[in-house]
């Protein structure tokens, strides 16, 4: 008797109860009860995932639940990873969300709809990886999209920009659904069955062209869900505008499901494919990584910065998944397993630090009402806990030791560096470029997060609202504390995940890599070895810091620290207006990447009346628009609008015309049949 069905049933019950409670209960009771039930659903989901990672598998068919096709559920270790991550994030965010919604009044996240949707969203996040047939998967997938859309719109009364973000999100996520539907319909039709087992069995009978088409369509849908360039446009809009707990869930558990779908479809159901699939995926990943983090480095909106950084991290994960597929297609399975383990570890790490970052950003927004870094500052003394937690998570995000992100990026780099032993031109050309792109993204990520932390939290407040910031309530800090504990654990003892990751990798038929074990990370393949011991690094750093602080103390004579005013070059005291802002911080990088970013500048000089020389006002404005959006989306949108305008003429209002359309359609159909298909 496995623990998985019990855990999933509990999760479903609690989630359902939470939704009902959200609908039914009055405002005062609503928030804590829903939070509790959601957290319970998260615990149950995480338990199911952990059980699957522990080696148990489970599958069942519930024929009556969906008409015609029934429901198929199955949980293996790969699904377990995503389930466990989603469950864990849900727990922390639910605790955080209680504190977040409590202060907001019965609107926004505290509203009836939002509180009813939150447990459902959590539930779908946990359940999507358990789907084992196309119809079950698509139903859960669509449910997740709809519920998250309603949650994104939760604060639509407060800001008009929420509505626009909602439209973008709705359109793009449904375009993704259409692509996915097409891919799976094609695949199921050719493979002769719609359960994942049937697809897996029938995949080798499908022609290579169709397999390629299925992979491209599904890949587009899944990379869009994960927020990878070029189908990322919804992400930097929807994630900042959603209430922060929802952003945290979307930016971790939900984008992860894009990765899950890609691994499941590409590596498992289709059973791998030719090199060009994976080269394409690596290209998408590399471009997302660099473009995403570059936009993040330019962004002065704190949550937008984090959203673009999600794009970057998903790009890194896709490089790992792509490398896995590439190595598999060349037959080097141990190396492929290493690449996939690195990608999965990065998924876990990213979920931990990004959820924490979004939660901390949420505390800032809740306390100050500001997302603009240029107006924040000085929060480290006003919100010390939040600032500390943000710093901890940022350490993970910049991929430097002793943060948790470093370990997975290290593993990813190792798998790529050793990939040169795989023969093939494509490998030799692509791997160095990917290493360079990863390195560049890591470097720019450091700049981006130094900016977020240094400008947003350090120095002095740049606006009265930042000056009046108050620390977040204890429940929010408790929720963030859970995530912080996860970050620290992942950073110090990643070896705990070793067996689980191996099982997840072997769930799709690759050998376990054994990369993570007890004390640290170790790569050991034929002719290759490398190892990393995070615990050791942290200990060494701690000792060295103590020495660096202590030795000068022993020697120094004047022990007492003197407070002095900031050096102001002798003039008046420097005001916060003189401090570097986020925009000025990013300016050199922006100039370096001018050709890529193509910023737009406006200079308006208003002269004093009747004088050509005296200037009354100079207004300078610079925007760094998303160039891909400009170049790719606007032409498409314009074309669509054009078609729509011309299509209006088709609907003349005459009944005869409409009947005529029907008649012509019928005749064309018959002609087509007669000509003989």
């Amino acid at each position, binding site marked *: 008797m496995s623990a998985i069905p019990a855990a999933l049933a509990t999760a479903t019950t609690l989630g359902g109860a939470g939704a009902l409670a959200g609908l039914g209960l009055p405002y005062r009771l609503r928030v804590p009860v829903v939070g509790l039930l959601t957290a319970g659903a998260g615990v149950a989901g995480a338990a199911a995932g952990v059980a699957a990672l522990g080696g148990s598998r489970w599958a069942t068919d519930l024929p009556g639940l969906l008409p015609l096709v029934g429901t198929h559920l199955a949980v293996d270790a790969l699904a377990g990873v995503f389930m466990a991550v989603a469950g864990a994030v849900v727990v922390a965010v639910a605790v955080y969300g209680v504190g977040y919604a409590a202060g907001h009044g019965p609107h926004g996240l505290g509203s009836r709809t939002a509180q009813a949707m939150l447990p459902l969203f959590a539930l779908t996040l946990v359940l999507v990886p358990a789907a084992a047939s196309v119809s079950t998967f698509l139903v859960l997938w669509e449910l997740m999209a709809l519920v998250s859309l309603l949650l994104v719109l939760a604060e639509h009364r407060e800001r008009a920009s929420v509505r626009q973000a909602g439209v973008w999100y709705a359109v793009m996520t449904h375009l993704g659904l259409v692509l996915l539907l097409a891919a799976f319909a094609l695949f199921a039709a050719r493979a002769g069955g719609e359960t994942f087992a049937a697809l897996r069995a029938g995949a080798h009978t499908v022609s290579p062209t169709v397999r390629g088409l299925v992979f491209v369509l599904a890949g587009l849908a899944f990379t869009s869900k994960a927020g990878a360039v070029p189908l990322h446009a919804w992400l930097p809009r929807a994630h900042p505008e959603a209430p922060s707990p929802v952003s945290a869930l979307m930016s971790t558990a939900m984008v992860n499901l894009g990765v899950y779908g890609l691994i499941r479809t590409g590596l498992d159901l289709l059973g791998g494919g030719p090199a060009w699939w994976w080269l394409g995926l690596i290209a998408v990943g590399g471009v997302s990584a660099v473009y995403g983090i570059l936009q993040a480095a330019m962004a002065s909106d704190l949550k937008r910065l984090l959203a673009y950084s999600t794009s970057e991290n998903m790009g890194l994960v896709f490089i790992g998944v792509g490398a896995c597929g590439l190595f598999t297609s060349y037959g080097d399975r141990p190396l492929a397993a290493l690449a996939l383990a690195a990608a999965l570890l990065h998924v876990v790490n990213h979920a931990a630090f990004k959820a924490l970052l979004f939660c901390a950003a949420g505390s800032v927004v809740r306390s100050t009402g500001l997302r603009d870094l240029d107006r924040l500052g000085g929060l480290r003394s006003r919100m010390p806990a939040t600032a500390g937690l943000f710093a901890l998570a940022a350490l993970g995000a910049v991929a430097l*030791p002793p943060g948790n992100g470093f370990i997975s990026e290290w593993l990813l780099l190792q798998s790529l*560096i050793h990939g*040169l032993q795989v023969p093939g031109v494509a490998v030799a050309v692509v791997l160095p470029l990917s290493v*360079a792109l990863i*390195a560049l993204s890591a470097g720019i990520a450091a700049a981006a997060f130094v900016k977020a932390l*240094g400008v947003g939290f*350090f120095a002095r407040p740049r606006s009265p609202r930042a000056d009046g910031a108050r620390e977040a309530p204890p429940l929010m800090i408790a929720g963030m504390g859970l995530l912080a504990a996860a970050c620290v654990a992942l950073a110090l003892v990643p070896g705990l995940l070793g067996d689980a990751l191996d099982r997840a990798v072997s769930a799709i038929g690759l050998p376990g890599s054994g990369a993570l074990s007890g004390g640290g990370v170790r790569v050991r393949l034929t002719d290759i070895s490398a190892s990393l011991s995070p615990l050791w*690094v942290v200990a060494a750093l701690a000792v060295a810091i103590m020495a660096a602080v202590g030795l*000068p103390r022993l020697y120094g004579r004047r022990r007492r620290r003197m407070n002095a005013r900031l050096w102001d070059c002798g003039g008046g005291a420097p005001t916060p207006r003189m401090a570097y802002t986020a925009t000025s911080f990013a300016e050199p*990088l922006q100039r370096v990447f001018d050709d890529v970013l193509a910023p737009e500048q406006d200079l308006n000089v208003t002269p004093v009346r009747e004088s050509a020389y005296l200037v009354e006002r100079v207004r300078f404005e610079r925007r760094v628009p998303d160039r891909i959006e400009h170049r790719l989306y606007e032409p498409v949108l314009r074309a669509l609008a054009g078609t729509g305008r011309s299509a209006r003429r088709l609907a003349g209002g005459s009944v005869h015309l409409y009947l005529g359309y029907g008649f012509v359609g019928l005749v064309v159909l018959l002609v087509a049949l007669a000509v003989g298909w």
Partner: protein
Amino acid sequence: MSAVGYAAVAGQIVVVGAGAPLLTGWMRQVRARLEGRAGAGVLQPWRDTRKLLRKEPITPVGTGSAFRTAPALLVATTVVAAALVPLLSTDTPVSSHADLILVVALIALGTVALALAGLDTGTAFGGMGASREMTVAALVEPTILLSVFALSIPAGTTNIPAIVSGAVDEPGRLASPAGLLATAALAVAVLAETGRIPVDNPSTHLELTMIHEAMALEYAGPDLALVELGAQMRLTLLLGLLSSLFVPWGIATGTSWAALAVALVLFAAKVCLLGAVLAAAEVFWAKIRLFRVPELLAGSFLLALLAVTASYFLSGAS
């Protein structure tokens, strides 16, 4: 592990820690002589450090813990990196952890800490320095990692002791185009990471041209001593790393005290030579404009990429 191994690790830390001011003094002396000056003597940076440690510690009002801890973190990352890099011996108790990517990341961590300290002051110059430093650091990263990539291909690992002992056994690796290109690329990256001419001028007094110095303008007394020591140690460490990777002869590969002593002397000689070359080159070069720095780094990136491809398609694998 033997006592020699532990002695080697301790020796590396002490040599980098105590030798860094001497190296700076030596480089200033070389430079002074080339400029026709008499020079303040090799010991001058140590006198400076001693004096700064005796001075009063100052906390500018409005700064926080990032400002206070950054100097210690800067020194600590360098110390840990110095323990890892096989400057004296490849056979130490920590040699199995000595990963090149880790060392690079540790150095970057020091950079990030100082940049945060610069922003923490909330002054215009601090932010300016932090912004520029992070820009340069972000652009240096690809070069460094690709050089690491190129170096790890013949050795099959990113473990520095393994790379170094492999090069000692097989000197041909170093004279190959890949080795030379990687050396050149890494040398440019080291110039950028340590803030030397042509990327940054360590002895400038003009705030508007500063990169590294601008972040340290608010530090005084013992904190400043740590910041300066940290910067000097980084220079020593990175020059030592360059010499270990590309002129590895003399580094002890076994557990013998004699070999360790020889390694110590040779290390001092190699680093002094490199320092003298760098100091002399600085007399001839001018600092380039900040927005020309990307060109320099793009060039070094290209060299690193060529190193990778060269090691692959010339005589390399296949």
